[in-house]
């Protein structure tokens, strides 16, 4: 019976395949997402939020009248699959693209050159190739909002403020996932430790990090004042549990923003209480925009997530923030190149480079405090460099601080140097940013 129905349905649909309707120009978002695989849970929340916001904007009349269309392709957080997805979708995105978000450092590394060659904007919000902050070498790549190095510097600043302005003589352990992601902030922390005269001990954890006995044994011997942790996935909860077992106080541990979501602390249970982490977006459905998405999009049954309990989690809100910044970039471009029109790659790129999301604008969007103010330019593709510190109270993340900015004067020259090295290896002649309008 079932088979018969299927056959009939198939036959009908072949007959009814309507000719493609000619439509007004749409902004096309190629979304290389991941919802299965080891990090699938994280991807579900992030891309759920991202797509929900696009749906929300569409329902509210589009980006100044321009509707968004999108296509997802499953990458499983795998670089080769990510490249395949990008190649598959790029021809559709050629005309009027939305910035591409991979939420994977590895995939974005692989796409930096390809997107530059194809002239498509690549956004890396809170991950990816951090030297792309220098827009003169990387015109098409945007590590928006903030980077690992600035985050590390902001965490150090937070600790400094906690210790009456000086960390001299203190001992800080940097416990990191031994991969590109975990190693990026080391240069920044080393620079900070020379400046602030504190001891820095670097302890790597091999992927995936579900066994950290040796590392925490060492931490116990060293008796550090703080542990800064750059973990991802299963490594985070293992670290919290092992710290509890070894008797290290969790309120002296600070994680990066990829080590500070509900997915990291809830599995650790009791051991996570008091643990702090950095974040560039707040959690909760208290933000008016998130509440409105829940009401409008989910109320109409158009929500992307089947598990609605994820709405308002850190990663969901991060997905929304990423979409907010991307949509704002298109609006910025529209203000220059023509309201009510779909934007082509060069115009979107211009929008990303001249982004100016002020608190007033965030308030209009109902996103006050969701993400920091962002103002980009040709030499600063980061645009903010600010994070908040939050603490897990056993049931939810409590924000402890206002936006903290890292030491830009110390960190940004590091990006410049790294970008210059990249330009030399690749034979790229940097643009002259003073000539960019």
């Amino acid at each position, binding site marked *: 019976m079932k088979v018969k129905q*299927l056959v009939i*349905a*198939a036959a009908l*649909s*072949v007959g009814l395949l309507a000719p493609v309707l000619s439509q007004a120009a749409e902004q096309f978002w190629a979304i290389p*997402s991941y*919802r*299965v695989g080891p990090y*699938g849970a994280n991807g*579900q929340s992030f891309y759920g939020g991202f797509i929900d916001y696009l749906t929300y904007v569409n329902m509210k009349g589009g980006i100044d009248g321009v509707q968004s269309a999108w296509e*997802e*392709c*499953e990458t*499983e957080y795998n*670089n*080769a699959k990510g*490249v*395949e997805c990008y*190649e*598959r979708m*790029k*021809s559709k995105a050629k005309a009027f693209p939305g910035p591409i978000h991979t939420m994977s*450092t*590895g995939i974005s*590394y*692989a796409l*930096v*050159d*390809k997107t530059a*060659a194809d002239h498509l904007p690549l956004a890396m919000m809170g991950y990816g*190739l951090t030297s792309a902050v220098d827009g003169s070498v990387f015109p098409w790549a945007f590590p928006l909002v903030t980077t690992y190095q600035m985050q590390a510097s902001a965490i150090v600043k937070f600790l400094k403020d906690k210790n009456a302005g000086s960390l001299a003589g203190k001992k800080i352990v940097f416990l990191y996932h*031994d*991969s*590109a*992601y975990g*190693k*990026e902030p*080391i*240069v920044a922390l080393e620079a900070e430790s020379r400046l602030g005269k504190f001891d820095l001990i670097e302890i*790597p954890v*091999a*992927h995936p990090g579900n066994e950290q006995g040796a590392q925490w044994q060492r931490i116990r011997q060293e008796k550090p004042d703080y542990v800064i942790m750059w973990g991802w996935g299963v490594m985070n909860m293992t670290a919290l549990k092992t710290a509890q077992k070894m008797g290290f106080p969790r309120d002296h541990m600070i994680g990066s923003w990829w080590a500070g979501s509900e997915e990291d602390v809830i599995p650790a249970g009791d051991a996570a209480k008091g643990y702090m982490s950095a974040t560039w977006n707040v959690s909760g459905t208290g933000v008016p925009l998130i509440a409105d998405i829940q009401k409008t999009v989910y109320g109409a049954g158009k929500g992307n997530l089947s598990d609605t309990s994820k709405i308002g989690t850190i990663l969901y809100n991060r997905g929304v923030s990423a979409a907010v910044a991307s949509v704002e970039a298109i609006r910025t471009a529209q203000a220059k190149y023509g309201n009510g029109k779909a934007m082509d790659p060069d115009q979107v790129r211009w929008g990303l480079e001249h982004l100016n999301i002020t608190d007033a604008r965030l308030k209009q969007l109902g996103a006050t405090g969701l993400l920091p103010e962002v103002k980009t330019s040709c030499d600063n593709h980061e645009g903010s460099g600010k994070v908040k510190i939050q603490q897990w109270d056993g049931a939810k993340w409590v924000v402890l601080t206002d936006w903290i900015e890292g030491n830009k004067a110390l960190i940004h020259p590091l990006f410049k140097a*790294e970008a210059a090295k*990249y330009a030399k*290896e*690749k*034979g790229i002649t940097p643009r002259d940013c003073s000539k960019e309008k």
Partner: protein
Amino acid sequence: MFYRETGQFKTSYAADQQIFPIRQDRIGMVLLLVAAFVVVPLIAGSYWFNAILIPFLIFALAALGLNILTGYAGQLSLGSAAFMAVGAYAAYNFQVRIEGIPVLVSFFLAGLTAAGVGIIFGLPSLRIKGFYLAVATLAAQFFIVWCLTKFPYLSNDSSSGVISVPDIAMFGYKFDTPQSRYLFVLTLVSLLALAAKNMVRSTTGRAWMAVRDMDVAAEVIGIRLMQTKLLAFAVSSFYCGVAGALYAFCYLGSVEPDGFSLDMSFKILFMIIVGGVGSILGSFLGAAFILLLPIFLDIALPWLAELVHLPFDSATVSHIQLMVFGALIMFFLIVEPHGLARLWQIGKEKLRLWPFPH
């Protein structure tokens, strides 16, 4: 009827010993090469080059490398991805550190470096066999990845440990379009495949096969085990090393040590198991099967789902894709345990008798 060698007489040893003794095979091969070198570059788009053809050729080369070691010399290895990593990082270092070195030279040196590393990790094969050797080569997998992460010198002090490769240029010509890269990869892979085919038909290849079939007997008839096994490791690692360099330079453009994981080694091993252990053609068929089938399913499933109005989201498609893929691997291994290459061979034998089978 069409595929029959009636009337093709061989009048010299050379004619009898050529790679394709049957005329139809020669014509077929020439047509295939013409298609690959001329027709494909004219009609394929950049998606085909960047996402399908280039990775297919690169993985076919790596599978070929592993097939030499496992299929011909009988030494089971789980370190293919690690040898690819050695090739990729070595080629990168030669390119970055030696000013103006032609890219082919650095690829060749990268292959040699991988061969050297392969010999070192092949040493245990003199004492241990089978599954135990697989475990020993597993050590290569972990050690090499660890080593590349541990020493920043190897990634030119990149703060993240990720290398981003320079342009591929030779004699002032830049391989920067997908077509030119495809042709570059295709040329290298064709030459290396030809070399491999000839190698396995030569004394060396026969010595490998003798060792594979029974090493004591091989030793008794005068084959030196140490040289033979280590040579197999060296040649195999050379192929994997070149494949790794191509993987970094022509495919991804930027690689990190973690990318060359055990998963990738398994993938290459599955390629030769599905394609055919001990067959050059099998390496290509296996690579095509393992690499292209998931992509095909990925594209076809949502389309099929839409056709019958089933509400599939991309996560469901991925799950179904995995299940179908697994089921197909099992199906092929049950139908033909000797791999796709053997299926092809049976097909050829049947064709020779067609339409009058006895």
